[in-house]
């Protein structure tokens, strides 16, 4: 589907054949795996909606290096994110922080659910329950039996 972006916008950007390179990887596998997780949540700031992990832009490479440097220096994940935000702003986070400018973004979906669900419930309350069907009178039952008789 991302290819459609290319198809439709007919962008002529060079698409990456590879993103993270072996030479960049950290020796410690647990540290490297943390770096990958963080990388997937950080936006390559010159790309279109790509994480730094998926991008082979020069900037993305530098950002990946910066993440690994911070991790090697002993920072926890939160500190690494804070470090990147301090340099590139909130824009770098693919999951935007919950703050004044993004309340509507985060709460919009649940709000639709709550408001629409509430309206539906109210409508259901207002609606009269369907009365149970009145049982047939003896006369009707007799006629029905007569009709059903083969």
């Amino acid at each position: 589907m991302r290819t459609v972006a290319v198809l439709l916008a007919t962008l002529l950007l060079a698409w990456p054949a590879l993103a993270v390179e072996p030479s960049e990887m950290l020796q410690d596998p647990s540290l490297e795996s943390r770096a990958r997780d963080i990388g997937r949540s950080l936006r390559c700031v010159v790309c279109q909606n790509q994480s730094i992990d998926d991008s082979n832009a020069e900037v993305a490479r530098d950002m990946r290096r910066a993440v690994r440097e911070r991790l090697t220096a002993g920072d926890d994940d939160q500190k690494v994110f804070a470090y990147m935000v301090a340099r590139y702003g909130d824009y770098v986070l693919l999951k935007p922080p919950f703050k004044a400018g993004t309340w509507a973004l985060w709460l919009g979906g649940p709000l639709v659910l709550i408001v629409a669900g509430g309206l539906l419930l109210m409508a259901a309350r207002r609606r009269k329950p369907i009365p149970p069907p009145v049982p047939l009178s003896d006369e009707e039952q007799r006629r029905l039996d007569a009709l059903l008789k083969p």
Partner: protein
Amino acid sequence: MIPELGHFALILALAVALVQGILPLLGASRGDIRLMDLGRTAALTQALLVFVAFGALTQAYVTSDFSVVNVVANSHSAKPLLYKISGVWGNHEGSMLLWALILALFGAAVAVFGAGLPDTLRARVLAIQALIGVGFLAFLLFTSNPFERVSPAPLDGNGLNPLLQDPGLAFHPPLLYLGYVGFSVTYAFAIAALLEGRVDAAWARWVRPWTLAAWCFLTLGIALGSWWAYYILGWGGFWFWDPVENASLMPWLAGTALLHSAIVVEKRDSLKSWTVLLAILAFSLSLLGTFLVRSGVLTSVHAFAQDPARGMFILAFLLLVTGGGLALYAWRAPRLTPGGMFQPVSREGALILNNLLLCTLAATVLLGTLYPLFLDLLTGNKVSVGPPFFNATFVPICAPLFAALCVGPYLGWKRAEIWPALLKLRVAFIAAVVAAIVAATAIDGRATLAALAFGFGVWLIVGSLGEFAQRLARTGYRMPPRAALGMTIAHAAMGVVVLGAVGTGAWNSELMQTMKPGDRAQFHGFDVKLERMESLQGPNYIAERATLAVSVGGKSYTVLQPERRLFAVQRRQVAETAIHTNLLRDLYATLGEGEAANGWVIRLYYNPLAPWIWLGAALCALGGFVSLSDRRLRVGAPQGGKRARTRPIAHPAE
């Protein structure tokens, strides 16, 4: 000469569409049958004319007529024939022409298959369809003329974007457009119904097959695009929450909701006003997707201003279609009489819950896609909304949807009991819990949410198949109606998609290694040896190919040959992945940069259950087609109609 013929045909098509959009409407309001019947002739003529125009452009591509600007910009004489043809719609002008063609073909289909429709309804549907066509044909002629000439003609063209030189391009856009444009028919039916002031079961019976057909094509189109991205982009992902993907997901979600609410109108004569609104929204979201992609606002808000004519045209058209539709709705919908009553716990209630959740999902995607644009426009602040956001907001709403999905089919119309339904689902529930526990302990050490999602996948499959089995047992093993069969297939297929997505998304693993010929790598029990590297000459590219011999336990298993292609005309590289699948997992290899001295970067992925994503999506569409073949949906259609009339079929009351 031929491009001019195409251009002329396009102008004629616009004229015909104007006639088709105005006179039948007049005829319908005056009761003039001649004006109403004009709509059918005009629809067929319009389709023929747009077809001629499309044929002319195709001819220019196939013969590499470089006096046409569009061909110069997007084709090259050395390109294989398949990509010359599919290249027709691999660019802005051509893809808009394809859109107009499919729109006209749908109009013609309504004219041909709509013989059984009431005259006024058919006339109005065709007129609305034509007015949409006027918008697109005018857009083509005034802002995006594909037949523009250039003189002197260059010796050769610029070629097609290499990523698009793939069989995927031949099928993905046409299928997607069949879906998008299919919703225009539903929209036309909704507007016509508002003009007529009546919506009834017969109307719903007409709308459902069109919705279903559009939905099936859209499902296939999205799945194909996702598969294409998976095998061509080379990092093993299948869904990126990219705005362009979201643009196709939104109409799919709205269309899925519409599909279900139309059942309520058909069976119970209820939810009429809501169904009409959904029909308007589904097509509006299709147009919104087109606007987002076409206008360039996705690249940046400012790209919109780079080609103001195009962007403003689509925006104005979008506002007219959506705003006009909604205004008409606000004006006329109160006249639609509310239909059958029902209690909250009932089939109707379940379908309302389905609609509520699907619309919330669509709203979430809409918000996530448009929020960055609006924030930038209003405040100048930039914000990124990527996969982690959607995983946190979209996925949780899927949980109640999937949970309720299996319960709905057990509930009777009008009123029902919830506990007997749940009791009948106990096997599925136990299977789901066991699957989740097994997944959490045996497969997955850390991501417990993935295990939960895995359980949901099993729940969907077992629950849907179980309902079908119980239905068979109840009816003495007589085949249920095709619509019910289609439902079971589509519902179970959703479970297959979920399992595939969880397997690939959460439990994949990768190995990245720099290798020289002769080097070996151990990966998931596979012994992977780089046998050799070689250079190849393709029709319009040169390639570097790695041959990876994969063996298991010393026995040769398979050979993977990933390539890296360099397209000389565009000077761009494209990775050609090599995938070995056994339908339970994919072994996926890509070739990265490198040279003989230091070796080449080889990336290996192990993607459990990956093929199930597309298998499930294809099954889902199959379910739709099976349901579409139900005789009940063909009532009123010329072929099926006679049989149905001579041999009335008793409908089960559920």
